[in-house]
């Protein structure tokens, strides 16, 4: 995933030094989190977040006031979300939360909430406050960066005490919520860096050089007029999926070459020049996971000479009233959210807190869905491979967290050590999923789908057992900004 460093460079700034490095946590003010704090915050209803929300403070560089607005907006969202997470964790079986790994994650959330409580009654209205708040955001992002692998390890260790189904249900909600929390924090950070009043954005000459992690965004920046960056924080309003696909293909291809000695190729068809407004690091994660699956299947079926066909199909911006879908049947919230492109819901974003009981679909039906604005063009990417398909038995478990067709030893090796074999091979560090070798913890598909669905897209998998697999990734953008 893009580190803060990369984000800063994309906006033309070198990463500033303290107060954002880890050592300065001691300068961050905290307040003790009480049970009543958690209960109070968790009772606040959550609303779906759209990309438009994140862009509404304006195009960087933001004015001081806009920056304060962004900070206050972030402040209005995060505490309730963190509280929901804590409550959700706390309703897992005691013995599971007692596992050191799971417990660590619980502790991280409590810590992060403690750094936000001092702002409870305040609004951010001075530059000093804003800088301090940004440090809090950086701390939050840093603290939670390894959540997935730690949680995975914890659940694996505690598998005697909790069923796979319960794990999937918890993780599905938790990881979706995590996408949102991170996004909100990272967005403010990115906006902050691109708006530092005493840096002149336009005079930045040197493009990021050697050690930048390869990503579509840097190449796009090169080609772009210096005066106009397509970025609004972490959102690239002119993201070209074809570029991301090429980069992911290069990366996954290298791993294949190393591990298997052969390297499948891709063939891109359709409208390859399509651009949408989306978040590069999300798309990178999803495509990496999907290509890993396709490449591995292709090689194992001995079909590496057959190119994997990737079709890029832009969806038209339409005036279709997605609101009518929403009003049709209020009792079918969850089903609707997953069946229909153009609607996002609290379910999609992990803001339905089954455990604590608040925000349950039947209680907060209409408030839980937001129709995406009209004219939010999107894109569908279809990946067709000849890798033999997915067997009917495996198909049942496709979307389970922790289900993988790799064998038990590899899994243990992966969870017991933090940097085992294949991890070392990967340049650029682990993605948001934490897994980096060709088949990891079995999180790639469900997590990829969580990312896609977060803003109203989705992933559908169609297996032609004995032939290959077709995967349909649909994404919605933010529309005109």
């Amino acid at each position, binding site marked *: 995933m893009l580190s803060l460093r990369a984000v800063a460079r994309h906006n033309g700034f070198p990463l500033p030094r303290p107060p954002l490095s880890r050592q300065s946590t001691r300068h961050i003010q905290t307040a003790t989190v009480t049970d009543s704090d958690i209960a109070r915050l968790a009772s606040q209803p959550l609303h779906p977040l759209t990309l438009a929300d994140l862009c509404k403070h304006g195009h960087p560089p933001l004015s001081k006031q806009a920056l304060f607005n962004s900070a206050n907006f972030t402040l209005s969202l995060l505490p309730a979300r963190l509280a929901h997470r804590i409550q959700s964790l706390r309703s897992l079986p005691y013995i599971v939360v007692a596992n050191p790994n799971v417990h660590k994650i619980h502790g991280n959330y409590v810590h992060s909430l403690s750094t936000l409580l001092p702002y409870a009654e305040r609004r951010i209205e001075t530059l000093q406050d804003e800088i301090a708040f940004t440090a809090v955001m950086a701390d939050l992002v840093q603290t939670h960066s390894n959540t997935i692998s730690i949680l995975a390890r914890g659940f694996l260790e505690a598998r005697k005490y909790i069923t796979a189904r319960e794990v999937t249900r918890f993780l599905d909600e938790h990881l979706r919520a995590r996408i949102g929390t991170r996004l909100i924090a990272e967005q403010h950070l990115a906006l902050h860096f691109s708006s530092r009043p005493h840096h002149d954005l336009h005079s930045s000459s040197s493009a990021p050089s050697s050690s930048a992690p390869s990503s579509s965004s840097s190449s796009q920046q090169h080609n772009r007029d210096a005066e106009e960056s397509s970025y609004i924080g972490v959102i690239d309003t002119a993201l070209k999926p074809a570029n991301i696909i090429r980069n992911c293909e290069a990366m996954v291809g290298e791993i294949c070459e190393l591990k298997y000695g052969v390297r499948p190729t891709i063939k891109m068809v359709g409208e390859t020049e399509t651009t949408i407004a989306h978040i590069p690091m999300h798309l990178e994660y999803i495509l990496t996971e999907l290509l890993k699956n396709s490449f591995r299947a292709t090689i194992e079926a001995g079909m590496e000479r057959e190119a994997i066909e990737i079709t890029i199909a832009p*969806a038209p911006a339409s005036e279709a009233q*997605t609101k009518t879908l929403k009003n*049709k049947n209020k009792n079918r919230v969850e089903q609707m959210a997953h*069946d229909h492109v153009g609607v996002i819901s609290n379910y999609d974003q992990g803001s339905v807190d089954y455990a604590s009981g608040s925000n349950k679909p039947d209680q907060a039906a209409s408030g839980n869905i937001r129709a995406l604005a009209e004219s939010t063009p999107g894109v569908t990417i279809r990946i067709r491979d000849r890798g033999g398909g997915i067997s009917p038995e495996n198909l049942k478990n496709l979307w389970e967290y922790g289900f993988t067709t790799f064998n038990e030893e590899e899994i243990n090796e992966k969870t017991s050590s933090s940097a085992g074999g294949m991890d070392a091979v990967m340049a650029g560090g682990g993605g948001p999923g934490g897994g980096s070798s060709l088949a990891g913890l079995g999180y790639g598909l469900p997590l990829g789908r969580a990312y896609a669905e977060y803003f109203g897209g989705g992933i559908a998998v*169609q297996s*032609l057992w*004995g032939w290959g697999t077709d995967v*349909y990734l649909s994404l919605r953008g933010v529309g005109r900004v």
Partner: protein
Amino acid sequence: MLNIARRPSAHLRWTTTLLICRPYSAPPSNGNIPPWRPSNVLDEWVQREAHPISLRQLTFFGRTLNESRLLSSANYVRLELPTRIAHRLRNMQTLPYSALTNEHISHVYEAYYRAFETFRKVPEEHLTVIPRLAMGILEIQDSVSGDECDRFMNTLLRSRISRRVIAEQHLALNETFHSPWHFDGKKSAVAPEDEFVGEIFLKCNAKEIVEKCARRANELTRKAYGPTVSLPKIVLQGHLDTTFPYIPSHLEYILGELLRNSIQSVVEQRGSAEPPPIEVLICEAAQHVIIRVSDQGGGIDREILPYLWSFAKGPRRMKRLKNLGQVPRLAATMQDLQLPPSHPDSTAGSGEKFGSSLASLSGRPPDLRLGIGLPMSRIYAEYWAGSLELHSLEGYGCDAFLQISRLGNKNEVLSTRATMDAV
């Protein structure tokens, strides 16, 4: 309590419908209510379980025909038909009251009741059942939920297919048995795989059927859009020699609908420009065959995507209703549209000889959009435990995936007693 004295004359009603074919109008508010009948006889039949069968059973049974087998087939049919009809009658009886006040639904109910009472289908009348049901469903949208309507339709249509399969299979076997060149216990002189066993064609070749359906669909499209319309090429790939036992009319219906949809969307989307080809992939595995139909016809509109598999339609409801109203007329004038029996692709072949209503639907003109092709195809596909899935690339095209079992050993999918009485 319903007023028994107001029961309309049954005979007069269905004759009127067929011959006059009145245009669609709002249904009257009452007067259509089916009478209250003492239901002891029906109860007895409802108690019985249906006995599902598989293609393989039908095949083995029919391969070596003799008189005792034929009789036992006749008895099976004699008992199964009324059992299954009774189950569907009970389904209809337990629909909300407002559903039965709809004239189309009550018409179908009456037809079923008559069939039940005589143990004998009235073929012409039943040609209109499917369109009528579809119309009725659309009309009762305000009082019965979409989900319930869909469940009801699925149950009814599945059962309908099953009864037809059983009955037509028996009739076909009967014909074989009584044909001049058959004698008891005869093993076929021709290689057994090339045979039809009753209605089942043991060596359905996917490639041939796709090509046949494609030709038919192209004919109809040319008729509708003019002979100069540029039709997309249909490209076949994959395991082209695959064969499997199936009932050809079922397969032809499904593939016909899918190809029609693809061709129409491509023609309408791309207009006069060189249309992109439609790719049909056939792939076989040990236990099943998958046929993928891939087009670049622009995909499915967002607003109808939620209603794709439903009989209870959304934004296009009124238009569909009007179109459905024209089908009964169509059934009577089908001869005009169909290819002559001498044509190799004529539907007057196996499976169609019993006046199947499938043929009348398949032969409809392309601009008569009924909106039931996909859900109907799915019911047919799932009937022998297969599946039909669709993925749309919005703004680009569609992929349809039809999966069929190769071995013929999957039982029919019926609605069982348990699901019927469940709340």
